[in-house]
């Protein structure tokens, strides 16, 4: 072969050589970093076991709040998101337009800004109104609004992915439009969108760290805020590491679950 004659190597040999070189470079970089790093100092600022141990058991309360904020926002987001998705596929124009504008607004605004709006702007503009549930209510709505826009888009895609024949079969049995939606389309659509919804839950878990801007107290603190105040108290970064690991404890299994559900995807 021509390639063999010119370089004296077959294509496969070339590929093997190139791999070997890449491995060698990677190992060299890692070794260099390991040799140059000041391990004592790194351990001192990140890996102080005594500081880590001191965070327990108090850290569990903030961990619980992170989960609570995430779930509250997710439930709010699901309820509003499904409604918006149904409006988005409605035959009635004004519903569709309202839903389209809603999605564009809340998908286009930063979650932090929406949280500020809910937490500060609305109470200021409407002094009579207080959100039910205190900080928990504010978070459910403040983070849930943003989330609902993404959920609405996922669910809309799911509804449109349900084959037309399923609707025709339901209608030919005498089911009304609404009954068809509730009994046939939505159950199938929600099954289709479980993977993206799981991803949304991962995003929300991380976005719950924004809650600190609402001025939380010791009892309503979530994980990031707690880790940061520990960081200040101890002048050491170990609390951030502990907090980070606890986030991963939530998000990695969720992501793995989403991947598994995606692979199982075709349930038909």
């Amino acid at each position, binding site marked *: 072969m021509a390639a063999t004659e010119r370089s004296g190597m077959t294509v496969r040999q070339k590929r093997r050589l190139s791999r070997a070189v890449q491995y060698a470079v990677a190992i060299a970089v890692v070794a260099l970093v390991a040799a140059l790093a000041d391990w004592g100092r790194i351990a001192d600022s990140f890996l102080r076991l005594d500081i880590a141990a001191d965070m327990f058991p108090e850290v569990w309360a903030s961990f619980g709040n992170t989960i609570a904020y995430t779930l509250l926002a997710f439930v709010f987001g699901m309820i509003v998101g499904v409604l918006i998705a149904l409006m988005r596929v409605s035959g009635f124009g004004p519903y569709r337009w309202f839903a389209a504008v809603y999605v564009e607004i809340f998908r286009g605004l930063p979650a932090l800004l929406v949280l500020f709006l809910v937490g500060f702007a609305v109470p200021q503009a409407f002094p009579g109104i207080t959100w039910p549930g205190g900080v928990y209510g504010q978070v459910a709505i403040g983070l849930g609004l943003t989330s609902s826009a993404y959920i609405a888009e996922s669910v809309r895609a799911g509804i449109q992915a349900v084959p037309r024949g*399923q609707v*025709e*079969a339901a209608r030919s049995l*005498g*089911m009304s439009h609404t009954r068809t939606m509730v009994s046939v389309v939505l159950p199938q659509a929600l099954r289709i969108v479980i993977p993206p919804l799981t991803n949304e839950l991962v995003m929300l878990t991380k976005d719950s760290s924004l809650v600190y801007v609402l001025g939380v107290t010791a009892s309503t603190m979530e994980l990031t805020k707690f880790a940061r105040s520990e960081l200040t108290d101890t002048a050491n970064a170990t609390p951030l590491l502990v907090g980070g690991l606890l986030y991963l404890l939530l998000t990695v299994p969720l992501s793995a679950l989403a991947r598994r559900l995606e692979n199982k995807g075709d349930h038909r």
Partner: protein
Amino acid sequence: MTISGLHKRFGDNEVLRGIDLDIDEGEVVCLIGPSGSGKSTLLRCVNLLEEPTAGTVHAAGHDMTHPDVDLDAARRDIGMVFQQFNLFSHLSILDNIAIAQRRVLGRPKAEAEAEARRLLAQVGVEGKERARPSQLSGGQQQRVAIARALAMGPALMLFDEPTSALDPELVGEVLSVMKGLAADGMTMLVVTHEMSFAREVADRVVFLDGGVIVEQGPPAQMLSEPKTERAQGFLHRVLHPVD
């Protein structure tokens, strides 16, 4: 069932150009014709899955094209079987047949499921009540779809190429269920390419081409000695595909 002056247009494409067709109670009519002739569209205009552009449809005692018609009520009395079965993929076989009985007719669960089991026995699909549609063969799925339509107690059954999506060896089991229905006196309108079924079961065969009924008559005459050239050509191509 009475159809008169039926037109259906999709944009610039006029698929049905004036159809008049009567079907008596208990009659079995097979609708044949080349693809694109408007057979399926005609069928779908009967229960208004497609809205006719012009003309009237009376079916199972309902004035389907009247502006005040209660379509949901009317469709209960008109069963439909689709080429692609269209079983509800998220429900078990039993629930596929029970769900409309419960949600549309308001039957109690136990009664709906008893009726579902009876119908499954009638179409010869037993021991699969808890299975999902995807776990059944195409022939079984189509028989379940027939049972699902029968569960509403229809006065008229529409079949839209019920065996076209099936492997050849599964066609017979579906046709024999349909034959049983015909023998029980069900009024049936069947779009089909199964000429042997038409010959054996139909009371009348209607040949549709270019959106109009070109010719109709009893199967023996229609299938063996059609009068029109178009029907002759079509039947020759269907019955002798290799020549």
